[in-house]
């Protein structure tokens, strides 16, 4: 069930990326998509249980797997920095293309057919 929701999040992000015209909206869609991916890592690491894996005397076996969570932390940081970079790029572009419509920007900035 949760898995289906997560895939729905990833897909809606992806479709937003394809169908939204505005560059800002595309970036937000990409953020939605990466949120879905992060959630999927968290879900997979919680397959065996939800307990925090801390070493202690009373052992329970239903620990959450720490590896995917540690890994996705890296991905979150990378995703954040890429979003930041993209927003800076969009700010620069917005000076000459205030509507930020992808089609317009693409038309103005792609070389004409020779």
């Amino acid at each position, binding site marked *: 069930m949760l898995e289906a929701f997560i895939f729905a999040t*990833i897909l809606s992000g*992806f479709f937003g*990326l*394809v169908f939204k015209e505005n*560059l800002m909206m*595309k970036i937000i869609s*990409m953020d939605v*998509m*990466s949120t879905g*991916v992060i959630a*999927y*890592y968290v879900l*997979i690491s919680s*397959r065996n249980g939800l307990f925090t894996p801390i070493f202690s005397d009373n052992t329970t076996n239903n620990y959450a797997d720490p*590896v*995917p969570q540690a*890994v*996705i932390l*890296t*991905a979150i940081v*990378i*995703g954040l*920095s*890429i979003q930041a*970079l*993209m927003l800076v*790029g*969009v700010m*620069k*572009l917005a000076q*000459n*293309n205030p509507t930020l419509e*992808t089609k317009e*920007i*693409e038309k*103005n*900035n*792609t*070389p004409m*057919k*020779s």
Partner: protein
Amino acid sequence: MKALTIIWIALPLFIGFSIYLLPRIARYLALGVAIFSLGYALIIFNLTSTFEFKLLDNFGVILVIDNLSGFFILTNALVTLAVLFYCWQSDKTAFFYTQIIILHGSVNATFICADFISLYVALEVISIAAFLLIAYPRSDRSIWVALRYLFVSNTAMLFYLVGAVLVYQSHHSFSFVGLRGSPPEAMALIFLGLLAKGGIFVSGLWLPLTHSESETPVSAMLSGVVVKAGVYPLVRCALMVSEVDPIVRIFGATTSLLGVGYAVFEKDSKRMLAFHTVSQLGFILAAPEVGGFYALTHGLVKSSLFLIAGILPSRNLKELKHMAIDTPIWIALVMASFSISGFPLLSGFGAKVLTMKNLLPWQVIAMNIAALGTAISFAKFIFLPHARTGESHVKAGFWSAITLLLGGLIIANGIYYEAYSVNNIIKPLITIFLGWLAYHLFFQKAIIQLSRTAEEFNHLIGVMSLVLILLFWLFFGLGNGLQTTANSYLSFQILFHHIL
């Protein structure tokens, strides 16, 4: 060796950031890093066996170093050196060198890692560094091209991440070996990421615009080594996991045809070179066992071609026909064009012979057509007019870069000198002759313009979903063992038709 490897990975990142604090010696520091990489690559070639080690536990970082990575690292070191020579007398700021060195380091890291997460990190660092390099001129166009690149690669990498966690789920390790026995969707998602990143097949159609609109040294770097960061993991997976080998070969054959198909009709020199990058990457994938050598020759030749194309008086090949190029530049251009067409005496010949020897029977026709197409489109360069104009506005840095790259091409002949037998020599000569004939009879006058619709931003992202479906289907077929390679190849062509 272990300590040396870790120093070698960390050094570019460390130096890259310190360059920013010491802008006056930026060029020298960058040069030092590239030379260190060159030395490291030579050490790898002296290793007798594969060197493999794990950091932390079985879910930690896995590094594999052998001849294959040696070839890729050598390519990276030589191309970076040439690009640094080229930029030596320019007014590039320390920021530019920072990005070049960080890019160099992260590309190096992809060439030795053998687990999906360190690969992911390295590929993302590449995206960021490449974005900054493409956007370096700060013009609207460069920012748009860079943004487009970052969008495509980041979306592909998100799919890749989902694939990576599926591999982890079935094996509790991120190692490449885990592809064996993983569910087909995991393989499909990971391949989607790598194909898009490496510029392979239709998911690589972002590449022509990006590489042709960047500045000269940046496009040399991007085409010479950066796309190989996506190709190397595919080659490595094909060698480690024999089940994915046929799929990598299918993509090799189709992408080489796709690239060549676009390139023969292209009238813009830099775009033509970029399409040839797509096609030549196909040659690397077509025979994964010997992909390393091909990658080396392609890296050297493509970066020198981009550097030369950057100083030609025009980008339009039609206009170039009416302008005489200075003879020395023309000679360099012809040498590079001969090497990529597979003419003997240059190592492009040896690489092509070696690749052709390692093909599977069903690939032979496709790869020969691709080789013919390469000869046709490089005839456009070879038959350009030239004259001794004497007015040399070219900087010395350009010549040292070209000498390094073309010299590398000649020396690399020694790697596979067994190629020089009569039979091997005749075949490329015939191919080149036929190519030139076809060029003079038809392609010189052809005015066909292929549509660029597939290169629009929305289509690039949309095509990813199509490629994903295709990959699902290929890998499911593989899992069921029902699909023969030839069969899937046929359906592939049909799909190919639909997309075009």
